[in-house]
């Protein structure tokens, strides 16, 4: 397992509020990693920084085999390198069909002119159909995405991530608002994806994390509090103190 993404010494503050504080983290390829932490631990900012939405004050982010620095790159360039992101709220293009949503995400040249003159290929169609099957939406390909249920939108968004053929997947609370059955399926999708690429899942739901059965990183006040298996970190007294106790009470 080689290191795909390496964050070191990342700090970011907003008007004196230290959102991320000297954070260092490594993700291998392939790997499935769960990131947990109480509200305000910096989980979303952490993702914002990797995907280029927020510029860190200090620190380095290196990605890929040639250790490219991601700092200063635009969101779209970072995404083109193979980093896909799913947002907390499902964000799909509701006016367009499921097929169109997936087609837009398919790994293809991204320039305006290549897109303008783009013609459908057999390979592309096949890949699209297999992803649709994976996310259980084969029967809904022609429907506008806005008509889908909440869980289906979540899947569609995960499907769009898969269609990007990414090397690193950042998934923010994928199970939020899903039924137990849907969660199970989501777990399977993520686990399968993690066989070929790195997947980082930010999640509140401990049961979901347990089912992922992977290495867990606990964030607290913008830095790593503990790292290891779920059993390992849940036994850590500091973690119990700052996070688990409160979350149990809160949820």
């Amino acid at each position, binding site marked *: 397992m080689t290191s795909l993404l390496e964050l070191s010494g990342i700090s970011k503050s907003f008007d004196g509020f230290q959102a991320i504080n000297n954070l260092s983290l490594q993700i291998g390829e392939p790997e499935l990693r769960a990131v947990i932490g109480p509200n305000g631990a910096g989980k979303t900012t952490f993702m914002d920084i990797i995907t280029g939405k927020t510029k860190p004050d200090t620190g380095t982010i290196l990605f890929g085999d040639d250790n490219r620095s991601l700092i200063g790159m635009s969101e779209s360039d970072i*995404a083109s390198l193979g980093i896909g992101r799913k947002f907390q709220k499902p964000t799909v293009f509701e*006016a367009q069909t499921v097929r169109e949503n997936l087609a837009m995400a398919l790994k293809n040249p991204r320039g305006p002119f290549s*897109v303008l003159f783009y013609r459908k290929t057999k390979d592309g169609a096949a890949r699209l159909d297999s992803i649709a099957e994976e996310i259980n939406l084969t029967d809904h390909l022609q429907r506008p995405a806005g008509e889908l249920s909440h869980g289906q939108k979540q899947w569609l968004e995960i499907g769009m991530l898969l269609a990007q053929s990414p090397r690193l997947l950042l998934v923010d609370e994928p199970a939020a608002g899903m039924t137990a059955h849907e969660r199970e399926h989501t777990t399977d999708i993520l686990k399968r994806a993690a066989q070929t690429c790195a997947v980082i899942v930010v999640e509140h739901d401990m049961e979901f994390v347990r089912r992922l059965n992977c290495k867990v990183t606990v964030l607290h006040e913008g830095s790593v509090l503990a790292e290891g298996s779920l059993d390992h970190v849940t036994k850590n007294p500091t973690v119990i103190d700052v996070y688990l106790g409160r979350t149990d009470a809160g949820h």
Partner: protein
Amino acid sequence: MEKRTTFIGRNPSVLYFLVALGLFTALVTVMSEATGAGLISTSFVKTLGKTLCLCLIAIAMDVVWGYCGILSLGHFAFFGIGGYAIGMWLMYARTEIIVADSLAGQVIPPTPQEISDAIGNQIFGVVGSSDFPLLWAFADHLWIQLAMVVLVPGLLALVFGWLAFRSRVTGVYLSILTQAMTLALSLYLFQNDSGLRGNNGLSGLQNIPGFEDSGQDVVSVAFFLASAAALALGYLLFAWITDSKLGNIIEAIRDDEARVRFLGYHVESYKLFVFTITAIVAGIAGALYYPQAGIINPAEIAPIASIYLAVWVAIGGRGRLYGAVIGAALVSLLSSWFTGGGAPNIDLGVYTIQWVDWWLVLLGLTFVLVTLFAPKGIGGLFDKLVRKS
């Protein structure tokens, strides 16, 4: 899975539109004074031709706003630039002919310098100058001026769009910025030393050099046909663009720009592409419009014109090309009907509503109502009818 695979199959409205436009064009041509039928006056043929040009810029506006979500309040500036570019040649070439005629009577044949001075005097006398500004360097070359119809709006849109999109100016900020650009341009043109005759603008554009022998009845039909052809081509172009995968991307940008960025698309390039190509089409529409109008002056470019453009598209229905055509045609024709005194005044006893005065009030309020209650415009009603049947 995918049943409708051909372009027309996916976009039946394109076919309907082209057929309707073709029939309309044929009908008007046959009934015009040029064929001797004379059922439609030459001036009304011009009005219809101008309306077609307005429809062309309206579909451009629809693509940039209705599809891509950029509410540009500057596209009429590109329209005006197109008009000025062709107007310079029309005015120069025609003045050259007039000057040549008047100098021909002289005993001593004129030198090139004398001819050029006389033309300069004719054109720039109204702003107290007789020298040709640098802007007019190619005014005697039709082909270069025609190229400028496309290049100047295109380059301006490219530079302006690049500046605005790269610094992520979006939404209402961008609208205001485009409005500012339009205001700056019209203020510049209002200056006497702008090289474009200040607020006099360019005039006499309806006289096409080389076609002095053809009457306005023939010229008007020629421009009407050209406008119809341009509208048809523009409609096809934009229908093709919006039908392509690029169409999906720009609609996605309209709905959630940030998400598109995280899919790896360089959103700025797409916006720039749409902004520039629609600006070019707007320039072409302007180049066809002003020879029919006969005169262009800076007031035409004022920010208000671009806002009216948005009004047309909104009333017609955003996000559908035929909606923009309906809106532009309906509102601009109604507008000339009301303000031209065509509409009967309403006598309320104590007060007579004169539409010349009250039309803008009606339009403004209608527009508010459309925005509130029919955000999809007339095109939206159309869609409902189609879905019911």
